[in-house]
């Protein structure tokens, strides 16, 4: 089918009015709100950091300066690489992977339980409500709530002290426990629902058939449920990984004094540093790296792009 045919079909199906509306809204969303801002960021990242009067002047030429800075550091620094920024970059990605895996381990059983007990009424619905209602609260407030729970005189430390398990409060903030817990919790729904969606459509007879043939629960999940749920798992993991790596509020509020998230560095260049091109360059590197990681993971686990939309 050629393109003009496709358009004709599209308008015949939706009518001229609705068809135009949908087309304009989607194009506006994709082009104006996503593609153009990203392109302008990309453009920014290759420019010198100049005071406003010199913009567009003879000094305003393209440069790789900011990318060089991220890798090599400031000219004349002691080390040959930008150890600080690259270190934060690496730690951020590692932490995002860790949070994603942790989320998957926690969410898969929940999603499986929810999907398989569908229709059995009360408890399932209450569980879903308990999962959703906390998200009516603002993300920043939730992060502060975690700070309070994990604080020196917070719920957890107090409980442990009262039970006599510890004498002095544990510094969960410094140990980044609060940060991982907060990040893990922040995107839990984005992991549960894609997996839930896929497993819900799994024919229960397949599980029974496997059981009938003597398979253990572990094998049923490994051979039947997980392969089937793979598109949902990868969709959930992608979202959680991307959002965790790009999170700003949670690291700002819950992060220990010694830990910095790469987004915080980007934020500093944009705001305190006022060096937009450098911030843009750092942001582009983070984005491209995350996309590469996601695509190579999809390749490794043999997930097709089309499956994600399922």
């Amino acid at each position, binding site marked *: 089918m050629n393109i003009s045919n496709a358009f004709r079909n599209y308008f015949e199906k939706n009518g001229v009015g609705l068809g135009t509306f949908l087309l304009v809204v989607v194009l506006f969303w994709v082009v104006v709100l996503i593609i153009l801002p990203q392109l302008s960021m990309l453009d920014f990242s290759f420019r010198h950091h100049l005071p406003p009067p010199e913009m567009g002047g003879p000094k305003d030429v393209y440069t790789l300066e900011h990318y060089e800075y991220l890798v090599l550091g400031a000219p004349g620094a002691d080390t040959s690489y930008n150890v600080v920024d690259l270190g934060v970059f690496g730690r951020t990605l590692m932490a995002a992977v860790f949070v994603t895996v942790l989320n998957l381990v926690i969410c898969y059983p929940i999603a499986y339980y929810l999907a398989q007990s569908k229709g059995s009424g009360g408890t399932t619905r209450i569980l879903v409500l308990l999962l959703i209602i906390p998200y009516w609260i603002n993300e920043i407030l939730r992060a502060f709530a975690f700070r309070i729970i994990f604080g020196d005189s917070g719920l957890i430390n107090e409980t442990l002290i009262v039970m006599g398990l510890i004498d002095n409060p544990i510094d969960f903030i410094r140990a980044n426990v609060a940060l991982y817990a907060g990040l893990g919790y922040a995107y839990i729904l984005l992991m549960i629902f894609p997996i839930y969606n896929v497993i819900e459509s799994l*024919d229960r*007879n*397949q599980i*029974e*058939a*496997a*059981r*009938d*043939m*003597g*398979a*253990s629960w572990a*094998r049923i999940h490994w*051979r*039947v449920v997980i*392969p*089937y749920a793979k598109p949902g798992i990868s969709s959930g993991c992608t979202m959680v990984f991307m959002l965790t790596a790009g999170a700003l509020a949670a690291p700002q509020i819950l992060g220990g004094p010694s830990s910095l998230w790469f987004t915080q560095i980007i934020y500093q260049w944009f705001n305190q540093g006022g060096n937009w091109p450098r911030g843009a360059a750092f942001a582009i590197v983070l984005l491209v790296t995350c996309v590469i990681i996601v695509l190579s993971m999809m390749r490794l686990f043999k997930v097709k792009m089309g499956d994600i939309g399922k």
Partner: protein
Amino acid sequence: MSKGVGVDLEDVCIRFGDFVAVREANVNIKGGEFFSFLGPSGCGKTTILRAVSGFLEPSEGRVLIGGKDMAGFGPNKRPTALIFQNLALFPLMKVWENITFSLEVQGVGKAARRKRADELLEMIALTGQGDKLPSELSGGQKQRVAIARALCAEPDVLLLDEPLSALDLKLRQHMRTELREIQKRVGITFIYITHDQGEALTMSDNVAVMRAGIVDQIADGHTIYNDPATPFVASFVGENNVFRGKIKSINGDHAIIDTNRSGDLVAKIATTAKGSLGVGDEAMMFLRPEACKIASDTSAAQNRLTAKVLHEEFEGQIYNVFLEGAQSKEIKMSLVNVGQERQSSKSDELTLEYNPDQAIVLPAGELASE
């Protein structure tokens, strides 16, 4: 038939809350037998199958396989294999992996599994198709893969939950024959669930007819069809003209019924009703459409009826003639198509005749609803 292992249900009751799905089922299935549970949907036949396979425990009574009480044994611990109504092949595994999944569970190596898969593929006439995915096979091929997968574990008892219901007519008939042949070849016990009497009668050694959780009759196909135990069996299996009335007299194996609309008729007393049926009892007489024929002698007799032709249907191998007897009693007659000219026109008066041994009389009871 020495290989097979018998299955016994002893006073099995299965309840879901207040609902009784199966009540006091007593069934003895001999080893190596092809046994069917036949009944309308919701009669509890699938529930019985699940109790045998171990997916649910009976509320009361015992399930014995090979004489051994199966209480407490899960489906993965029983010597049974189940073929699901929708087959439940694993869509993401290749055909050969599907077939040998039970061996994979037992930790059998890949080469041995592949070899066994090839043997089974040969048995189901799908040689060389092992590397396909189930979605690449036709309905009948999937069916055969499901059978091979179930047989791979070498179960003592194979349980089949209406596996042919999704197939079209020709394929269904073909698969009937094939299933029967496979059963004879492997010699294990087959328990088959169906609402299709044709399937039950053609394939089974014995059939249990079920109605609302109760097993009404267990017998071979001939007996079920020719000598039903209850009005439900008589009306559910095959077609029957039903005449209600009272017993007027009993003479040996036969009884005369004073029917409500068609006068006195003679019929054989069903084996199960012998001795219990007395003069004056409410009774039902069942006369199969194919047991009727057109009488040449039109004088009144207790095995003759007069009726007016309403209309006629040509079904290929038979003509169905719909008639109206006395007091608008509807009667159906089937005449075998032997090349005769059939041109009875509407309102023709006919005299029907039947062999009294082919009509059955039973105590009045519940009929199968259409």
